[in-house]
């Protein structure tokens, strides 16, 4: 892959949440939606249209790999998706970036407090 993972940053919230939901295990679309809702404690709800639109782009960028259906699933229409190594790299890079943002933000917030005092 000639593109560096940093070329994809920053990620949109939907992309970030989907990558994050797939980080632990392979999931189907509905499970991804539920996982995103769980991660955000119900504050970020992903509709199927947005989900599959993002999945489509992520498959194209090879962040995510489509695995197909699993026999014996409750609903045979479900397809499973897996994070690729690129997707994992992108997620890690985004996490680092966000970590820097958070660290920087905390630093700024801490240094601002005394002035108010």
């Amino acid at each position, binding site marked *: 892959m000639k593109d560096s993972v940093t070329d994809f940053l920053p990620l949109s919230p939907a992309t970030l949440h989907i990558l994050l939901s797939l980080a632990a295990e*392979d999931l*189907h*679309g*509905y499970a991804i*939606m539920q996982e995103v809702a769980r991660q955000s404690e119900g504050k970020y709800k992903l*509709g*199927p*249209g*947005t989900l*599959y*639109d993002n*999945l*489509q782009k992520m*498959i*194209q960028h090879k962040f995510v*790999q*489509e*695995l*197909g*259906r*699993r*026999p014996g699933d409750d*609903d045979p*229409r*479900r*397809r*499973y998706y*897996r994070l690729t190594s690129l997707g994992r790299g992108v997620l890690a890079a985004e996490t680092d970036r966000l970590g820097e943002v958070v660290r920087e933000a905390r630093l700024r917030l801490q240094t601002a407090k005394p002035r108010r005092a």
Partner: protein
Amino acid sequence: MLRSLYRRLLDLHPPGFRHRFADEMLSIFDQAREKRAAAGLLVDALVSLVRQWTLRPEFWQDVSPAPTTQAATNGIPTFHTIDPFRPRTAAVIHGLVLSTAVFCLTCFAIRYSWIHVLHVRIPEVPWESSQSTQPNPGSVATPTFEEPGAITQQNPIVQDSPAPTSAASSRLSQASVDARPAVEVARRPKHRLVSKSAQTSDLPSNALRPQDQTGIAQLEPAQAGPQAATVASATVPVTSADLKLDPAERQRAINGAIANLTKYYIDPDVAKKMADALLAHERNGDDDAATDGKVFADLLTRQMRDVSHDKYVVMVYTAIPMPENPPTPTPEEIARYRREMAEDRCTFETVKILPHNVGYLKLNAFPDASICQRTAAAAMASVNSADAIIFDLRDNPGGYANMVALIATYLFDRPTHLNDFYNRGENSTEQSWTMPPVPGNRLADKPVFVLTSPSTFSAAEAFSYDLKMLKRATLVGETTSGRGHMGMGHRIDDHFTIRIPGVKVINPISKTNWEGRGVEPDVKVNVADALATAEKLAETELQHKK
């Protein structure tokens, strides 16, 4: 109801998206238990529909279906279809620009090519700077083979020439009509801008206008019929009879004639003979009786001819004093010449394709290429696809060397040396070459036949002789007239002018020319049979080629 609506919305999605995700989205819809949630999914599907059709053109096309049959089992290799590919916008624009450019270039190439195939295009030849012979105002050699006819024959010496065809004289411009017998009027290339040549005289002796104008009235009867020569010669003395010559005037004329002969006549030895003869006659008192200008001029002419046997050495007397500066062609004269050429198709009397695809051109002069270049090019283009060419020069009295070179250009695939023009007075030589090959011309390797007759004269003889020497043409007909020198008038004083052949054509191959002898044809047949003979020869040669 909501489900079918949702399904309909999914069906409206682009095929690429629908085939891949519609089932899963419907599956999710089916999981929604509450109506409120279902309504939210409907709104989501609507937004998705708009988004997919407006923002995701790359997914409009149906792509390979997902690997539905493949189990997503860990450890088992999976197979992927090729990802849908959409080129970058910049690449699309580049491709568009490039395609347009290639298309335009191809169109131009085709058009350019067709011009070459369909039209023989004569380049705008810079005659003034070309290597070939051109009308050069500074040179006496190049403009025409036959110099201004207006002073050629004031006397009736040429009565031994072929029978006159005075019809030709009626077409002459006023400027070119002179007091010569109709014989010479007819023989001189009528398609010539006379005063243009006159301006090339290296001496201010070529002042013909007054003579021309007086001569016109005298020549009126001459133009009416074959008896003109006699009539004209009889009328001239009437004009000049009033003026009596004194010994000083005679002496001045003789001295002037000798000086000019010595300087300009093409053969120095013959010039000396003529000079000696003139002096001897003077010493003997042979000239003393001649008090009439015309009679005296004829006498001197005869004295010179007796020793030189050159009928083109002529002493001319004009009753009205001639200006020292030669006249230049007026715009009206040039326009008249152009008009005459346009009316006469530049003397290309016939241009056609004969049976067996033999091109035939009957050319009745070699007009000035600077005026007739397009017509000549069109004529040659119209026979470009012929398998052989016949040039009919049987009625061609000559003309301009530049037209000789222009037409010969079509017969060679490289610039070819045709002739040298040696100018005795200037002791200079000017070369005549064909032009660089004409693009699209196909005649360079085709058999050429030239029809000749005793009327083929001057530049027409040069054309025939050059092609014969270069072994480029077969000459068919009778021996030509035999005019390989060019004369020029030299003013002696107000009343006397001497016309002296001062320029000689020298062929680079034979190192000589056809002066006096004429150009002998390769195939000698009667003039009347020349065309039929040439056609047969062409047919035979073409059959041999096949």
